[in-house]
C-alpha cells in the first residue's frame, strides 16, 4: 500500500516529490513551459518549511528604526521574533495571559502603549503586531491605538498578522508592506526629489549586502533615500515617495509595494538582481539607463569586473561541473540560479517555500531540461532528493543544513553567515563559501569511512 503510493507512474513527475503534492513540482521541459502549483494551502503533517504571517511581518518590518515593535500576544511570539535573519532586535510584548485571553486584551494593550509612551518618549512610532491569540479573541486593536495616540502623541500602527492568515510567510510580507505604505511612506510633503534619488525595495542587509549595493550605486552618483527595510527609519520613509526610481531587489516582498507606489506617486520601478557578476552589471546598466547615468554605470562596471575577473576564473575552474540543489525562501530561486550557472555549477533542482508564479517563471527560464522545480519543498523531499540525485552541494535555509550534513552533503546557508553575497565583491564571497563547503577535508574523511563500512547501505 505504501509502496504503491511512492511508485513513480510517469517520468514527468519530479522523482523526489511527495505523491500527494505531485502538482507542486514540474520537470523542466523546453517544449512545455509550466510552473508548479504555488500559493496554495500546505499539506498538513509533511514537515513543510513554511512559516506564518507573523514570521513574514517580522521578517519585513524588524529592521525599521526609530520605532518600537510591540508584539500583542503570548510572550513567546516576541521571544522568537527577537532574532530576525540572525540579528537581534529589541522587542516588546504584551505577554497575554489566560485572563486576557478570556476577558479580552484591549485594556492591557492600551496600558502597555501608555507605559511605552511614558518610558520611551523619544520613539516616533509603535508597531503593534497582532498574533494568533488576539486574532481569535478579536481585540479591538485599532481603538486601543487611537486612544494611545491621543494620550501619548506617538503614532501607533497596528500590523494585523495573526499566524493563521494566508498559506505562508509572504502574506506577512504583504501586510508589512501595506503598513509602510499606509502609515509611513509619504508623510513628509515638503521633501524634494533629487535627480538621482532612488529607493531599493526588498533589500534587508544580510551580513552587509546593502552596504555593498549602496557603495556601488554611490560610485555612480546615485543616492539611496531608503532601502526597505535594510536601513528604513521613520524619517527616511516619510521622504521615500520623492524619488525618481524604485529598484526592486526581492520581488516577493518588494514587487507589490513598487506597483502600489507607482499607482499612488507615479514612481517607475525596475526589477534587478545584485547577485552574480553578470546580473549586477545588468542591474547597474538598467538603473543607469533609467537615471541617465549610462557612462557612470559603464565606468563602475568596467572597474569592478576587472577587479574580480581573475578570482572568478579560479573559482570557476574549481567549481565547474559540480551539481547543486537550491532550496530557498522565495524569489531568489531565479536570480541565484544565474549565479550558480555563472560558476559553471549545474542546478539539479530548485525549490522555494513561498515563491510566486513570476518567481517560478524566472527560474524556469534559467533551468536546464530535466531539472526539477518544486514549490514548498519539505524535509523528506530534500532527503529523497539527496538520495536520488547525490548532489555535490545544497544551498538552502538553516533548517535543512544539519540534516543534509547527516547525509554527508555539504551545505551553504542562506541568509548567509560569512559576509555579503551581493555585488561583485559579494559574488566572490559566495563562490568562496561554496568552495569552502565542498573542499572541507571532513567530507573526504566521512566518505572514506562510509566506503570501508561494508555493512550499511542507504
Amino acid at each position, binding site marked *: *500500500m505504501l509502496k504503491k503510493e511512492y511508485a513513480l507512474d510517469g517520468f514527468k513527475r519530479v522523482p523526489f516529490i511527495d505523491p500527494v503534492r505531485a502538482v507542486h513540482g514540474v520537470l523542466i521541459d523546453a517544449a512545455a513551459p509550466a510552473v508548479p502549483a504555488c500559493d496554495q494551502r500546505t499539506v498538513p503533517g*509533511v514537515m513543510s518549511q513554511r512559516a506564518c504571517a507573523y514570521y513574514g511581518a517580522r521578517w519585513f518590518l524588524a529592521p525599521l528604526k526609530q520605532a518600537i515593535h510591540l508584539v500583542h500576544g503570548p510572550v513567546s511570539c516576541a521571544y522568537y521574533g527577537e532574532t530576525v535573519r540572525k540579528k537581534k532586535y529589541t522587542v516588546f510584548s504584551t505577554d497575554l495571559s489566560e485572563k486576557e485571553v478570556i476577558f479580552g486584551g484591549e485594556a492591557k494593550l492600551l496600558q502597555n502603549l501608555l507605559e511605552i509612551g511614558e518610558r520611551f518618549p523619544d520613539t516616533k512610532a509603535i508597531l503593534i503586531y497582532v498574533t494568533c491569540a488576539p486574532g481569535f479573541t478579536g481585540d479591538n486593536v485599532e481603538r486601543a491605538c487611537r486612544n494611545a495616540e491621543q494620550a501619548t502623541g506617538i503614532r501607533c500602527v497596528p500590523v494585523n498578522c495573526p499566524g*493563521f492568515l494566508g498559506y505562508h510567510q509572504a502574506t506577512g510580507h504583504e501586510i508589512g508592506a501595506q503598513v509602510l505604505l499606509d502609515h509611513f511612506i509619504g508623510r513628509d510633503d515638503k521633501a524634494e526629489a533629487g535627480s538621482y534619488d532612488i529607493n531599493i525595495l526588498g533589500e534587508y542587509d544580510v551580513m552587509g549586502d546593502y552596504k555593498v549595493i549602496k557603495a556601488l550605486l554611490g560610485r555612480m552618483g546615485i543616492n539611496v533615500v531608503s532601502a526597505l527595510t535594510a536601513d528604513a527609519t521613520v524619517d527616511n520613509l516619510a521622504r521615500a515617495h520623492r524619488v525618481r526610481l524604485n529598484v526592486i531587489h526581492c520581488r516577493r516582498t518588494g514587487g507589490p509595494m513598487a506597483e502600489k507606489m507607482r499607482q499612488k506617486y507615479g514612481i517607475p520601478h525596475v526589477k534587478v538582481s545584485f547577485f552574480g557578476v553578470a546580473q549586477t552589471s545588468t542591474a547597474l546598466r538598467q538603473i543607469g539607463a533609467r537615471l541617465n547615468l549610462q557612462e557612470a554605470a559603464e565606468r563602475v562596471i568596467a572597474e569592478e569586473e576587472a577587479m574580480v575577473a581573475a578570482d572568478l576564473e579560479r573559482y570557476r575552474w574549481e567549481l565547474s561541473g559540480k551539481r547543486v540543489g537550491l532550496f530557498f525562501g522565495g524569489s531568489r530561486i531565479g536570480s541565484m540560479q544565474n549565479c550558480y550557472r555563472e560558476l559553471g555549477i549545474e542546478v539539479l533542482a530548485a525549490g522555494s517555500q513561498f515563491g510566486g508564479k513570476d518567481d517560478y517563471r524566472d527560474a524556469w527560464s534559467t533551468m536546464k531540461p530535466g531539472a526539477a522545480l518544486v514549490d514548498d519543498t519539505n524535509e523528506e523531499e530534500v532527503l529523497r532528493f539527496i538520495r536520488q540525485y547525490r548532489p555535490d552541494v545544497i544551498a538552502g535555509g538553516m*533548517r535543512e543544513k544539519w540534516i543534509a550534513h547527516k547525509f554527508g552533503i555539504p551545505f551553504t546557508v542562506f541568509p548567509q553567515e560569512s559576509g555579503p553575497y551581493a555585488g561583485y565583491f559579494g559574488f566572490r564571497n559566495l563562490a568562496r563559501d561554496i568552495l569552502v563547503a565542498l573542499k572541507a577535508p571532513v567530507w573526504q574523511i566521512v566518505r572514506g569511512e562510509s566506503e570501508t563500512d561494508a555493512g550499511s547501505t542507504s
Partner: protein
Amino acid sequence: MSSNCQPIPIEGIAYNQLKIEKKPIVPEYVPRDPVLVPKANRTVVVNPSRTCMPFGAMFAGLGMHRGLPFVQGAQGCTTYVRYTFCRIFQEPASIANASFHEDAAVFGGRKNFIEGMRNLIVRYHPDVVTVVTTCSSEIIGDDMVSFIKAARKRLIKELGEEEGNRPKLVLVNTPSFAGSHIVGYDRASRAFLETLAQDHSKPNNRINILPGMVMPGDLRELKHMLREMGVDAYILFDISDVFDTPLMPPQTLPYYPEGGTRVAEVEDMGNSIATFALCQNEGGLGARYLEQKFEIPAFIGPMPMGVKNTDLFLKRVSEVTGREIPKSLKDERGRLLDFMADTLHHTMMKRVAIFGDPDIATGITRFACELGMEPVAVMSGTKTKTFTADIEGIVGEFGFKPLILNGSDLFELEESLKTMPVDVIIGNSKGADIAKELQVPLVRAGLFVYDRVGYHKRPVIGYRGGERLLADLVNAIMDFSYPEERTQQL
C-alpha cells in the same frame, strides 16, 4: 632633562584598581527613572527571557526514540521552534505541523489534524507522536481527545489493526498564554507517564530520572555518574543522542537519530523504586504523578550543580539503591575541590549576576556562592512559586542579599545592573547585549546558548560539570581583567 622627566608608572597595580567606574557605552545614556523600570510597576515586557509552553513539549517529544512532535497550530509555531533547536544544537529537529490557515481558524482544526496525523505516520513511521496544542487550537476549542480517536480510527482503516495501533499518541495540552516552556516540559513529563506508564506489577529495581531541559553533555555526565555507581536508570526525555549525534552516512530514510527514550522504557517506569526529578519545575509534575499513583518515592530538585547539590543527589541515589558512592566519584569531587581552592583568588568576592531558567539559576547561584562569589542579581525568566524562597535560602547561608527577580525580563536586569556594577554575568545568549553594554564578561550556561558552539556538548551538572563551569568562569574573568598580559601566571 631631568626636570622634564615623566613620573615613572608604578608597576604591579591590579587592573581592578585601575577601573574607576563602569560607564555605559552610549554617552548620551540617561539613567531611567527607577520607579519605571521594575517589572512589578509595568505590564509591558521588554526582551522576554522565557518562551512558550509548546517549546517545552516539543523538546520533550523529540527526546523519545523515533518520536515526533505534531503541533496543532499555525506554521510559525513549528518553524520558530525548529529554528531555535537548530541554532542551539546544530542538529536537525523534525517537527510536524497541522498548518492552520483561515479555514482551520473558522471551522476548527479537526480536518487538519486527522489528515496531518495520517500523512505524518504514513511517511515517517514514528513510535510515538507528541500532540502539542498551541494558543490557536486552545482558543478555538479543538477537542483533541476526540480528534485523536478519529485519527486512530483513520489509521487503523488505512494501515490495518496492528500498524495503525502501533504509534502511541500522547496529548500534551500547552496553551502558550498559560505558562512558559518550563511548564510545557513539566506537563509533557506528566502526560507521557500518565499515558504510557500503566504497569506497577513487576518491580525492576531501577530508578527513574526526569532530567529537565538540560543539554546532551549534562545527560552524558549524569549517565557517567550512574554508571560509576552501578545504578540502572530510566531517563525520561533522553535527548543526549538526539541533539548530539554522530555524522555517519549513509543514513536511512526516514531519518531518525539513534537516541531517545524508548516507549517500552516509559511503560516500565511505573515499576521503578524511586523517581528523581533533577529540576523542580521541569519534570517535578511527572515525579509527583508517579508518587501519587504508584507510591514511588519522588526526589524533586535541586539540580546537581556544584559540590553540595551533587553530594545530595549522589547520597540520595545511594540511599535508595543501596549502592556505595565509588572512589572514582569521590575522586572527581576531590578534583573539583582542588580546582576551587587553586582558583579561589579569581573567584572570591567577585560580584556576579545570574539569570536563566529557574532551576539552573538556582543551581548556579548555589555554586557561585560555594566559589565565594557574591550574587548581586538573580533572575528567573519564568515566575515560579518557590524561586524567591529558594534563592533566599541559598544566599542566606552565605550572608548575601542579592536583588531577586522572579519572572522578570532582560530590560529590568539590564537597567538594574547599570546601577549596581558586577564583575561577571552568568546566563544564556540573550545576555550577550547586556554584557556588551556593561562591558563585563558573559559566561554562557543554560538552555538558550546559540551564539557560541559546543556548549551543549559540555556538562554543567555533576562534579565534572562544575569543573567546566569554573574553568569557563575563571578564564572569562582572566581574559577580561588582564587583557594585555598574554602569558598570565597563575
